[in-house]
């Protein structure tokens, strides 16, 4: 497409890669080229096929069709070990190392120097220390990995990748839980590796970081390749529109519908008022009010304490400081059940781990919250169940519209709608939505956004958390900004408030 004049032959050339999962075509004829001494960004929305493509390259998934050339030689990896042997090393989003082992072992595991057949621990530690030193990391190789921060673990993982003299280093969302200093440090290491001729595949949601570090990018959408671009030649707006494609209009549509009207906060009692609420190791004490009919957006980077804040309001974690008032009366939320009793519903960001009960049917999943609230003895009458299920399947446009389908067989977006239905069925007055639109397709996303706006218009208090600042701004009346597990500021939304204002607030940390 563009600049095929890049330095010589690519180190990795993937052509026509297709992978199919039962019922879903995850990748459809995707090409990817990586060049030595270049940082290549892989861009795309959630579900675009980025992680599938990475897993095909790193031998976790087998490919159904297509070809992978590493250094010109065709490869068919049947496991991560083989990919590593061929010089393709990977650092995954959740650091995939063993916390129970030492730093040195994690770096050298599988490549330990030996003496007379036995592992030579002294040499192992020495070589690990050398690798750490090239990362500029001065930590005790004998210390246990679990005692270090995620950022350090990340660098340890890269050290491990470099032990095998990787030609290709895949970094899958390496910055998602790092703060700015840590990112800067990581980038220094990445640039160092690039200058040593390593081809780096960099995956991130943070567009600014991609522009900062990458030389070239490949954009995916819905399992297909949109194109390959030199980073310097594509504007941010162009990139975003290529990532989300034609569906831009859908979102524009929505924006018209949810003009920020007068903040409903005026003159009423807040549904929830938190004063100095906090939890050690979770989120520092914060104040927050949400009024009936109001959408409060929570903005901040991943790991900024957004989720932790919501969990305190949901009774999912117990606060150890501060106080909470619900509808003007003091309340304590000891567990989620108590919160539900107070008409608070919490949709977790971890849809699979904390939301979906996959082996139960859509019907059972929808009534689960309501039934749990009634207790096991008072079973919901079948007729009432059918009514509720029917209503929500239709109202939320859940597909397939079969209440007897197992929830795990639905797509991510439809699972999310079922979970919303579960919560709406409990008739909440405060809805805590943590990343309700993450990893679902744009159509379902627009529907959920519309629903949130409607619910607020009908008087529900909503706390809306999303990594996408545009989305937060589109929906909320007020935006609370989080950074480093602390609420650093709050601003009233309006026509002249833009993403930049929020970014600035995050960046400045509220001028503490």
């Amino acid at each position, binding site marked *: 497409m563009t600049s095929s004049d890049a330095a010589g032959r690519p180190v990795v050339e993937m052509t026509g890669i297709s992978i199919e999962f*039962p*019922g*879903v075509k995850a990748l459809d004829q995707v090409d990817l080229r990586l060049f030595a001494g270049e940082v290549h960004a892989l861009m795309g929305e959630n579900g675009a096929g980025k992680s599938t493509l990475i897993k095909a390259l790193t031998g976790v998934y087998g490919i159904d069709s297509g070809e992978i050339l590493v250094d010109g030689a065709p490869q068919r990896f049947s496991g991560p070990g083989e990919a590593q042997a061929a010089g393709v090393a990977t650092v995954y989003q959740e650091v995939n190392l063993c916390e129970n082992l030492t730093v040195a072992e994690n770096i050298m595991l599988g490549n330990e120097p030996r003496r007379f057949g036995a592992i030579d621990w002294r040499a192992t530690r020495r070589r690990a220390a050398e690798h750490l030193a090239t990362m500029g990391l001065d930590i005790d190789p004998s210390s246990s990995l679990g005692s270090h921060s995620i950022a350090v673990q990340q660098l340890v993982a890269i050290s491990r990748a470099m032990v095998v003299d990787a030609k290709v280093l895949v970094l899958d969302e390496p910055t998602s839980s790092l703060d700015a200093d840590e990112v800067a440090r990581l980038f220094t290491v990445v640039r160092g590796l690039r200058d040593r001729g390593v081809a780096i595949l960099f995956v991130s949601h943070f567009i600014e970081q991609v522009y900062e570090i990458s030389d070239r990018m490949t954009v995916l959408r819905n399992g297909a390749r949109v194109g390959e671009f030199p980073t310097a030649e594509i504007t941010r707006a162009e990139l975003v529109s290529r990532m989300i494609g034609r569906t831009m209009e859908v979102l524009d549509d929505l924006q018209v519908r949810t003009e920020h009207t007068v903040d409903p906060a005026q003159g009423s009692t807040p549904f929830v008022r938190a004063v100095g609420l906090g939890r050690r190791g979770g989120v520092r004490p914060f104040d927050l009010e949400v009024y009936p009919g109001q959408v409060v957006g929570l903005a901040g980077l991943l790991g900024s304490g957004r989720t932790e804040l919501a969990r305190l309001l*949901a009774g*999912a974690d117990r606060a150890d400081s501060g106080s909470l008032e619900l509808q003007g009366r003091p309340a304590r939320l000891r*567990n*989620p*059940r108590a919160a*539900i009793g107070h008409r608070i519903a*919490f949709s*977790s960001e971890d849809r699979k*781990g*904390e*939301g*979906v*009960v*996959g*082996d*139960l049917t859509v019907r*059972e999943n929808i009534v*689960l*919250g309501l*039934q*749990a*609230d*009634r*207790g*096991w*003895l*008072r*079973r*919901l009458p079948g007729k009432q169940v059918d009514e509720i299920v029917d209503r929500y399947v239709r109202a939320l446009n859940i*597909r*397939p519209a079969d209440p*007897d389908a197992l929830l795990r*067989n*639905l*797509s991510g*977006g*439809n699972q999310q709608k079922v979970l919303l239905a*579960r919560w709406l069925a*409990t008739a909440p007055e405060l809805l805590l939505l943590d990343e309700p639109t993450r990893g679902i*397709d744009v*159509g*379902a996303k627009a529907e959920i956004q519309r629903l949130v706006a409607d619910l607020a218009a009908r008087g529900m208090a909503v706390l809306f958390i999303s990594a996408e600042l545009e989305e937060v701004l589109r929906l909320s009346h007020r935006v609370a900004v989080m950074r480093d597990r602390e609420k650093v500021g709050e601003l009233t939304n309006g026509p002249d408030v833009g993403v930049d204002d929020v970014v600035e607030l995050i960046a400045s940390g509220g001028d503490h």
Partner: protein
Amino acid sequence: MSATSPAPSRAPSSGRLGTVVRHHLFWPVAALVLLLAVNTVFRPSFLRVSILDGHLFGSPIDILRNCAPLMLVALGMTLVIATRGIDLSVGAVVAIAGAVALTYIARSPDPGSAGTALTAMGIALVLALALGTWNGFLVSVVGIQPIIATLILMTAGRGIAMLITQGQITTVTSAPFKTLGAGFWLGLPVATLVAFGVFALVAVLTRRTALGMLVEAVGINPSASRLAGVQARTIVWTVFALSGLFSGLAGLVLASNVMAADANNAGLFIELDAILAVVIGGTSLAGGKFSLSGTFVGVLIIATLSLTVTNLGISPLVTPLFKALVVAAVTLLQSPVMRRKLAERTRRVAPEPKVVAR
């Protein structure tokens, strides 16, 4: 038995035969029928039931009576396994319950009275419930993995039973107590009636209330259930307590059948038989969906298997070997690998409906 759980499987209808074969009870029932057939071939009178003194007699009745303790234990085990747990201590609880009841009767001034027998049973059941509650406490409150939490009682339990019986094999004579294990009512063994009655009661309880669904939700995804407001802790605690209670009842049935409390051997390996019955019945050890009707068939299979071995003139001591073969066959058939292979075959025939993305 007709009151056991409605079949949860929803096999796509591709011909009546396909539906039958794909029903989750097909393989267990087929195995049971096969076992009965083998027996009948070997001894044509096997299935004959005769009436003697107003009671029913015959091998089928033997199976029904012999399976009563296992039926009770497997019932509790099914619920525990559905919540992702496992209860290794049931054998120990069986021994303790028998020991307590018989020791109480032996020491009472009037061993033959109904009051003594009832009190003894009451004490044993309360103790069994307490032991189950203890397990539930370790699992749901302290947060110890079920296999380890119940391993503690499994290890210590027989010691406790020995402590109660002072290492003796306590034997007593008490007609009212003997009724539970060896008596007949309406021509049927009382043990069978009790076990099946409790089984039916629990089956109705789980499916007519929301207990079944909540147990399954906790087993499938504990954290999602907790966030949905399900009292996961209470449910887990309850199923362990029930498992203890049912094991205690099984212990009483066993003890009253032989009228002796053998702390060392009463209920030996019953935990393994129970787990086996649950697995044969199609409930996954990974928790979640459970099938009481499956467990019911599983228990019958194990009881029939034991009888078959004797029937074929093989030493009953070799029974474990056959159980091993059954476990291997069933688990291999149910293993994810085999399922995937089967699924692939069906997929090729009729492609799964595409996940609707919209």
